[in-house]
């Protein structure tokens, strides 16, 4: 509790001991956050016998052949391509339809805008849709079908809420001016509103695409053909086969972790604004 009280003031100069405690705490926590990642890197560079002898010992020589082995055996290029296709197509369909849902709701251009918005907000509390969704896809004949799988991801209620909130900050006078100039509704939304709300679009795209990329439950339910597996499912399959060979498994995991970490450094602010949208205002 000492650290909390010492840190309570926002910008006041903390006492030396307060600062010391703060750093101590941050570093300790950093060890818990970095430790698993460093262990992953270290393991991926070792041979299996050396890992079995002493799992934590620093890799004395660097064995990059683990990566080659994992890459060769895991069929990752195919899985990654699948994941990318799912994420790109579902996100595109979602964002295009979402803009035309969010804009008239934010403006009150359709009746019952408030009710419609509420329908999206309550999604957080509703029962899991898992079972009827499965029955639906099954009956449509889209089980184990990439199209059926993509269909599952063309909605995202939180994204609608983010877009509505952002569109409200675009001045309404713009609509009137554009209409007076003879601009039609579709062209207005598509070529004037869309560029103006780019920050919100970016946030929604990032959140939605990452969600699809990381999805683990739905591919195990809906896809049985290995050719359709996304990377998450592919990794689980790989773990099933190489689960006991940690150096190879670790290099596989690392090959998928590293791009995500790098991507994270670039996309961090979009994720942050997505998470904090609406939460601060209350």
């Amino acid at each position, binding site marked *: 509790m000492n650290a909390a009280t010492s840190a309570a003031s926002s910008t006041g100069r903390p006492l030396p001991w307060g600062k010391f405690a703060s750093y101590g705490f941050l570093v300790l926590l950093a060890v818990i956050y970095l430790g698993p990642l460093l262990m992953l890197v270290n393991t991926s560079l070792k041979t299996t016998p050396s890992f079995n002898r002493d799992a934590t010992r620093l890799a004395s020589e660097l064995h990059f052949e683990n990566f080659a082995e994992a890459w060769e055996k895991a069929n990752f290029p195919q899985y990654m391509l699948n994941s990318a296709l799912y994420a790109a197509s579902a996100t595109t369909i979602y964002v295009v339809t979402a803009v035309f849902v969010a*804009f008239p709701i934010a403006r009150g251009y359709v009746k019952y805008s408030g009710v419609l918005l509420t329908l999206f907000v309550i999604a957080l509390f509703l029962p899991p849709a898992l079972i009827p969704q499965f029955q639906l896809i099954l009956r449509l004949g889209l089980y184990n079908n990439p199209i059926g799988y993509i269909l599952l991801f063309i909605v995202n209620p939180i994204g609608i809420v983010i877009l509505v909130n952002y569109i409200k900050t675009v001045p309404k006078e713009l609509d009137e001016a554009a209409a007076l100039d003879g601009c039609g509704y579709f062209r207005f939304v598509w070529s004037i509103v869309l560029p103006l709300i780019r920050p919100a679009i970016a946030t929604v795209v990032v959140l939605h695409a990452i969600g699809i990329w990381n999805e683990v439950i739905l591919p195990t339910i809906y896809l049985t053909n290995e050719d359709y597996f996304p990377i*998450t499912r592919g990794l689980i399959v790989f773990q099933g086969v190489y689960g006991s060979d940690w150096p190879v498994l670790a290099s596989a995991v690392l090959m998928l972790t590293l791009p995500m970490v790098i991507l994270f450094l670039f996309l961090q602010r979009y994720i942050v604004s997505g998470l904090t949208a609406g939460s601060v205002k209350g």
Partner: protein
Amino acid sequence: MIGYHFGRGRARWLPYLLLLPGIIAYFVVALGPSLATSVYSFTDASGLPGAPINWVGLDNYEEFLFLGQAARDNLNAVGRTLVFCFFVTTIQFALGLLVALILNQKLRGRNFFRTLYFMPVILGAVIQGLIWSLFLYPLGGPLAKFLEIFGARSEFLGAQPTEAFAWVIVVQIWANMGTTMIIFLAGLQTISEEYYEAARIDGADRWQVFRNVTWPLLTPSVNTNLLLNVIGSLQAWQLFLILLGYRNGTQVLGYLIYATGFGQTSGSVTSSFRQGYAAAASIIMFLLVLVIGMAVQTVLRRREARLMG
């Protein structure tokens, strides 16, 4: 309705027309199925194509809650879900707040720490789980070595159910604490410096500043985080899938729904595609989320009213 400038008559219908695809998709893929869960919960639907579906009334609920050993297992899973929710929420909330308060100071390297703690959110359950499976490697892994120093040892994820369960709580918090922290940081940044100045002029010490300025003014972030953490942890089970599999004594409600509905289990427990039954379990989970979510909301409202009044 006010001030639509893009034409009248037939042109007035254009916004509705363009709105339709998104709304229909939402109803068909998400809202409809979600509501239909309650209907399915009264049937014996299976996951097999072409199999007939019969109305069975409350049978699924009766079986889930009252019939034999399975019902006891189910109620244990419900209890475990609540335990998971309690520990994840309280620890993640407290830790997230503490870290946010520290990082809200002018500290060197605070961007680094912030990025580091937040980073796991992008990795997803599979990578998070596998990274921790390695970190918790029982035969001389880092944490095993660390425990050795104190003469202790553990099988970690392979240990007794209670202990394995506790490790999932740790990984869950590791993975999501960053989100809580980010929301608190955003809240802290909206608090005007003037309040702190005023409090300091009044001679308030650090604790009093926190108690009387920061904490009440942080209310929106407190509410958001509590609700997100409670609902999120009641519904989360992906890490159980990756870290433990469907193991007796560790199942939570979300995993149970999946396992009974889709028959994909591992280890000693097996089940078939009992989707009507799984739908009933979904409704029980929904009620759990609803009741606890509402209770939290009520407490938060009262608190807000007290702070404002």
